[in-house]
């Protein structure tokens, strides 16, 4: 059940430092939205506000509204734990749980939430691993530790872990930046499949990747180091890469800065 995200007037702070300023955008369901922009412009920060992970950082604070379909994630009666079950996340560096086997890693979300039926677990794990295109590679060693896999396999394991809890939205923060080109390609293929079922937001430093996998692209920038990051424009990926409406976007994409 992919959902639409509607952000309006969102600012995020680390203590007194304002990291992103007044961002408004819409993320369409069943599509891939890519975030691009120079380092430090607040892409990760913005992404983490979309599943209330920003406030996990000491001093993290958010102003504004994030509507998931018709519910405000920052409404006063909303439990961040429930939000994170609905909006899953994949991190830059693969981070499987080192004490758990491959099977347990995928099952972790369900097990740790205590919301599962024992006889369904194996099915969910298989479905998630197939969904992450990892099943054939690991089906013979489900009980081996997840940290024994290659980097690309570990990242797909983390994706399997994230989709096992059946979120509506999947956030990915530079999921390929620690991977080799082959593993990157595997994950890009996976993203194209996953967008049938999820709303996907991906942060990437790789322009070709954004062009390959995304339907819409958002360009972020910051006026100067120490200034808060801003959304410059968001549009169809084709438009952004061929004929952006803002000069800064064109400069960034053509490599004139950043």
């Amino acid at each position, binding site marked *: 059940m992919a959902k639409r995200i509607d952000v309006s007037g969102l600012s995020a702070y680390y203590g007194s430092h304002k990291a992103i300023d007044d961002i408004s955008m819409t993320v369409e369901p069943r599509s891939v939205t890519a975030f691009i922009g120079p380092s430090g412009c607040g892409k990760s920060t913005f992404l983490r506000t979309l599943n209330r992970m920003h406030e996990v950082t000491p001093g993290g604070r958010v102003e504004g509204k994030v509507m998931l379909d018709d519910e405000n994630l920052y409404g006063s009666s909303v439990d961040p*734990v429930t939000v994170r079950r609905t909006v899953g996340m994949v991190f830059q560096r693969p*981070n499987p*749980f080192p004490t758990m086997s491959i099977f347990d890693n995928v099952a972790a979300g369900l097990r740790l939430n205590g919301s599962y039926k024992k006889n369904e677990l194996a099915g969910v794990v298989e479905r998630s691993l197939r969904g992450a295109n990892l099943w054939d590679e690991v089906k013979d060693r489900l009980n*081996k*530790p997840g940290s024994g896999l290659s980097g690309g396999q570990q990242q797909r394991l983390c994706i399997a872990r994230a989709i096992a809890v059946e979120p509506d939205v999947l956030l990915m923060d530079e999921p390929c930046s620690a991977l080799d080109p082959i593993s990157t390609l595997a994950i890009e293929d996976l993203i194209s499949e996953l967008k049938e079922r999820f709303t996907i937001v991906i942060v990437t430093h790789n322009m070709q990747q954004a062009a390959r996998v995304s339907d819409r692209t958002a360009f972020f920038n910051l006026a100067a180091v120490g200034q808060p990051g801003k959304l410059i424009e968001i549009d169809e990926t084709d438009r952004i890469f061929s004929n952006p409406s803002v000069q800064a976007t064109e400069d960034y994409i053509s490599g004139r800065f950043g």
Partner: protein
Amino acid sequence: MSHATTGLKDHRPAPAPAARPSLSSRSLPRLAPLGFAAVSIALGVGVSLAAGWHSRTQWGLLSALIFLAVSYAVTTAVENQRQARDRLATSVVWVCFLVAVVPLVSLLWTTVSRGVERLDGYFLSHSMAGVLGWEASGGVYHALIGTLEQVGIATVLSAPIGLLTAVYLVEYGRGALARAVTFFVDVMTGIPSIVAGLFILSIMLIAGLEPSGLMGALALSILMIPVVVRSTEEMLKLVPNELREAALALGVPKWRVILKVVLPTAIGGITTGVMLAIARIAGETAPIILVVFGNQLINTNPFAGEQSSLPFYIYEQYKIGEVAAYDRAWAAALVLIAFVMILNLVARGIARWKAPKTSR
């Protein structure tokens, strides 16, 4: 560049640019240090005998100094100065290692060789009931029971308190309360064991309590809690933040993240820390003298009546001053060392078994 930065006083004429120095150079055989050691020990002993010194310590130190000088000088002559410095540093490390290990081995050797004389099934299974000090009879059973119970109770009290405190400090603690807790833990780390004993003693006097194993366990807890807090804190800090975030992002409540991800990841180190803390308190004598009082008889009830304990027993037997009592003291010391050793091995076993698995 190498000319500018090495800073060596190299008085040799600079090699002509055309004739590059060969990459290989003369070098000492790999076993040369053994030769140096043999020569310097012979020299050291010879000089010491000639000078009429009696202390073996002096012999050893002299040999060590000669060893350092010989290996430096010979290496300078045969190889070059950089190699010589390398050799000197290596030699210093070796000498320090020996200086540290010799007392340890000597202590172990003395305890084992003197302890085994009396250590047998009878010694482990009998108390000192009705045994006179000079009689070569009696055993350590009552003291072993006392140590096991007191240390056991102290661990049951301190491990959860210490663990929870550390979890609070690492996972939740912010601001003034956390700083205050850290401060008091630091202060507690430095409390001498006699002071912990006196503290419990004063409470006993105020509340009209009698000496018992439980009082000893309380005093030992005061010593154990800060050690557990410190070691657990360090272990929890080693757990990468990414793992916490990964679990939180799956929609897991924070307390379950701590219970199911953070603690299991750190459990090996935490166990080792608790075991080391146990080893530390198992050897404490002062609080036992004050608040458990000692006993010649078997008292299996830690909550009422005086008890003995291994360190107390050793002290007591030593004070008797008879040959048979000395033998009992050595045997008890061996039992205590074995107890701590077994705990350490168990801790290592658990740490290895529970450690995050990285191999395929």
